[in-house]
């Protein structure tokens, strides 16, 4: 604990200021309760997500380098992002900037040309879940819990990019079987790569029960294709929702606005088609933590969730 720092640069990403407002609001609540401080990254730009990198390599690096430069300007060595896509993009940029000095020099020159301070140092990027776990941890969550989520069966959905790939997220790979020395970039704070458990631990500390959800907890929701390749996304979401439902989940906890949107959108479409066992609602894990800390459903913006977790939570007396 205490590796990352209690005060960090907060990169919300575009969707947290729009459709995923609930995640932003609840994240701030949870951070405040846990005694952590988020320093909003002023005038940031889009990270390019999963889309821009397929169009332009250098352009995507530049987009992320600009955000890194903003963080440096605000005096931070650490950026925390609540979105899997954003943290992936920043970590990807970190990887290429660190491993290739030519790219680093070129990016710096281009930043200067674009009127942005060049990078004197490459800040590290963490997912917000990792930060909560390492700077506050389950113990602190337990202390702060006023209204335990007793009886709530949660399927913890991590999505694909939270621990992957280990080149960027710097997790330890179970598959590679390489020695410690061969992995100089491994990160102490990273979650288990194939069996992540940070969200389970935090929500269980708040009184919830985790249901069996492997291997769907890191199965892709088809997010980057959720608009352009509807058939694949629909199938993947169906598999995720049905596994959750059949293992007895009341709710799916998410930690990425893209996964969340994809789950909600396709849940609705699957229900319209009459597919069985897909009616599990989704909520951000921060919303659930906020409820446990004694905040009301209105405070954590539960009404923003299109999949409507309110009835389930009300039934259990949690909202």
């Amino acid at each position, binding site marked *: 604990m205490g590796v990352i720092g209690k005060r960090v640069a907060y990169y919300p990403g*575009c969707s947290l200021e*729009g*459709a995923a*407002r609930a995640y932003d609001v609840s994240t701030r609540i949870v951070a405040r309760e846990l005694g952590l401080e988020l320093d909003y990254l002023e*005038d*940031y*730009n*889009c990270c*390019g997500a*999963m*889309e*821009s*990198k*397929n*169009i*332009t*390599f*250098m*352009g995507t690096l*530049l*987009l992320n380098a*600009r955000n890194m430069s903003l963080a440096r300007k605000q005096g931070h060595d650490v950026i925390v992002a609540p979105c899997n896509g954003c943290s*992936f993009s920043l970590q990807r940029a970190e990887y*290429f900037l660190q491993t290739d000095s030519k*790219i680093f020099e070129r990016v710096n020159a*281009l930043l200067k040309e*674009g*009127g942005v301070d060049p990078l004197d140092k490459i800040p590290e990027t963490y997912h917000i879940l990792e930060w909560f776990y390492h700077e506050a941890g389950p113990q602190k969550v337990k202390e702060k819990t006023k209204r335990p989520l007793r009886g709530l069966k949660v399927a913890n959905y991590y999505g*694909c*990019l939270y*621990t*992957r*790939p280990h*080149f960027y997220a710097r997790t330890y*790979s179970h*598959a*590679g*079987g390489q020695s410690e020395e061969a992995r100089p970039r491994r990160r102490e704070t990273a979650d288990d790569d194939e069996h992540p458990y940070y969200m389970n631990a935090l929500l269980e500390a708040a009184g919830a029960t985790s249901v069996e959800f492997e291997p769907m907890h890191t*199965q*892709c929701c088809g*997010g*980057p*294709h959720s*608009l*352009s*390749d509807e058939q*694949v*996304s629909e199938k*993947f979401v169906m*598999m995720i929702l049905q596994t959750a439902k059949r293992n007895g989940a009341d709710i799916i906890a998410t930690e990425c606005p893209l996964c969340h*949107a994809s789950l*909600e959108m396709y849940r*609705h*479409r699957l229900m*319209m088609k009459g597919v069985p066992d897909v009616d599990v609602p989704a909520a951000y894990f921060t919303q659930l933590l906020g409820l446990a800390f004694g905040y009301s459903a209105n405070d954590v*913006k539960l*009404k*923003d969730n*299109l999949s*409507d977790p309110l009835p389930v939570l009300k039934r259990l007396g949690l909202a």
Partner: protein
Amino acid sequence: MAIHERSLVEPERIVRKERLVIDGVDVSGDWNLIILPRVINDYDLDFAKEIINSPDGKTITLCYQCSYCTASCPVHNYWDERYNPRHFIYLARLGLIDELQKRADVMWRCVSCHKCTHRCPKGVLVEEVLKVILRTMAKKGLIDEYPSKKFDKFFTESVLEYGRIEDGELLFGWIEKQGYNVVKDPILKKPIPFLGETPEWLKQLVMKPIKSMNISFLVLNAKHMLFHPRTKSWNKFKQVLRKVMQEEGALT
């Protein structure tokens, strides 16, 4: 006998005989399945060179074809077994472009979940390499415009213009690109939600915040659609981005 990766062999090249005698020995039973040979002679080695020379594609040389990427891939396992990252890398390295073209209809279906990259024991950035293969094919005019590329372009243009994206505009703009007849306002030329044709599921989905009177959520999103959130000091940076993209041939 089972054929490993059967989807890689054209069905007409798989011959199963009732009885088979070779050199006077009856090999009927398990051994009566034959894959007819084929001759390939149109290698394009420049194709591989172009991939190796790009910063995100150079790890293609490390691949030793163990197929862990394919075994991990959800698109291969749950959608279409013709989507086979290991095979795409193999074909690209040999420069077998017509074989790649035959698979163009599934090649774009990668969902970027990075399981392949993550599990690769050799350190190939598989997902990135596959995207470079696609990019190179598109640049050479070997592959038609495919849906995910159209979306990626649409997305990137929005980022380039404003520095940020906006969910509503992305959604309705994309619906328009898919051929729905969307009504646009005369001044800003932006699609007005729900005035024209809209998919039924979307109408119903948006009824939810309206029904539960979640006014603040609707107002926020409407505001963002009208006044696209933008990064303030963007103009100078935009020029640099545009220049870089032009160098890469990403802007047409």
